[in-house]
């Protein structure tokens, strides 16, 4: 797969690199409560980044702000120097904690995001994605009848079908059994190996250790700590991170 960042730089936004991602002084308030509070963050396009923090710390909100599903109350987000736009968002994909399954078959859920392709190519691509997601047995099954793990694999395959350069995962394994978690982590590694930047929100410290190259730790709507994964788990620099890792931090 062609890495878009290899493409020559031009005035066309769709040809310019997405990274570095820079969020500056982000504030997001809803009904009088400040949920993201002056958050600043810089990420490069390499590796898997785990976003961690307590419930309500603002992790999911941060993902939605970066992806453009929410608009910050103030502050700026720049992808490779460009503000969020439809063109920028078209190069990203997001998978939600509870996968949104269209009321169609598994294959049709994939076909839905591939309708720009000619029919033959689309069918071929659907077959590939179904196989990669290990859903061959369920291609014709209504998506909403799949198991939780199958649904999440389908959601990830669907996100992948859009050929994003960045994949946001919002607690994708939160309510799955260990086998399903394992299967999804396999898929995430494959995606990363294809050169896609993965930003994953997770509560599962084991999962973060297995997957992440670096960690962004959010506390009370701010970035409390950002570090390489190994360093973060061995020597957290803040008391909050220390408490979180030991299961003592409460929001």
């Amino acid at each position, binding site marked *: 797969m062609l890495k878009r960042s290899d493409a020559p730089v031009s005035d066309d936004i769709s040809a310019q690199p997405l990274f570095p991602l820079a969020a500056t002084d982000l504030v997001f308030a809803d009904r009088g409560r400040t949920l993201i509070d002056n958050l600043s963050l810089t990420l490069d396009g390499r590796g898997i980044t785990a976003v961690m923090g307590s419930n309500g710390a603002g992790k999911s909100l941060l993902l*939605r702000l970066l*992806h453009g*599903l929410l608009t910050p109350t103030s502050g700026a987000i720049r992808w490779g120097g460009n503000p969020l736009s*439809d063109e920028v*968002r*078209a190069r*990203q*994909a*997001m998978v*939600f904690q509870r996968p*949104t399954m*269209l*009321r*169609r*078959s598994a294959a049709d859920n994939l076909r*839905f*995001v591939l309708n720009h392709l000619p029919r033959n190519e689309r069918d071929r691509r659907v077959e590939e994605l179904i196989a990669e997601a290990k859903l061959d047995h369920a291609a014709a099954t*209504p*998506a*909403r*009848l799949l198991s939780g793990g199958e649904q999440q694999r389908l959601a990830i395959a669907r996100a992948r079908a*859009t050929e994003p350069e960045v994949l946001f995962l919002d607690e994708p394994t939160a309510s799955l059994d260990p086998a399903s978690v394992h299967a999804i982590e396999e898929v995430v590694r494959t995606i990363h190996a294809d050169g896609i930047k993965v930003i994953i929100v997770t509560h599962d410290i084991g999962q973060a250790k297995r997957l992440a190259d670096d960690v962004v730790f959010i506390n009370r709507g701010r970035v409390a700590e950002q570090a390489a994964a190994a360093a973060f788990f061995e020597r957290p620099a803040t008391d909050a991170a220390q408490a979180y890792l030991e299961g003592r931090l409460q929001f």
Partner: protein
Amino acid sequence: MSDSGSIFSLALGLVLSGDAELWSIIALSLRVSLTAVALACLIGLPLGAFLAVVKFPGRDAVVALLNAFMGLPPVVVGLFVYLALSRSGPLGVLGLLYTPTAMIIAQTILVTPLIAALARQSMADLHVEYDELFRSLGLSMSRTIAALIWDGRYSLSTAALAGFGRAIAEVGAVIIVGGNIEHVTRVMTTAIALETSKGDLALAMALGLILITLALFVNSAVLTLNRTARRLAYA
């Protein structure tokens, strides 16, 4: 003179006798109301989905208007269409008055608000579920609406059935714009009105019984199809 037993046997006799006139009236009733419902779906479903998806100033007012129009009296709609289609009206040159087409137009106007309002409600619920995904995919408004209609098709068929129920049962609009002309624009409801005005209450009731059976048949056919399709295909 008209106990329920004799009405029932009269209705049964009418159906079993294969009375050609009765069947042509039934066929016209179905043709007019099903066509009207189909047209109302073509307008009402996208309109309902649009109102569920797109926020614009005055949307609440439009929705309130739509809900109010759900209860539009058929006679008022009939009168409105009569004035439009009359030779002296703006569309008089088309010569549509006293034709099945005029009846279809009237019933379409009658049931479109009902179908749009019911569609908006179920589309709004579905949209809450799909909204983030669709925005993440950068889906256009037209594709969003099409996807909501397709994925909500089972609940929308309930809206279509409600529209059909209103159309097949109404007499006020079709009698004005159709004229209840024998062999041309006479449908079940106007035939019932005619028999009532002739004082033949037993025959009127028998026709009413057939009308109810007809509506029951269409409803259960759609619901059965629905359930089967849903079980076979998509949850």
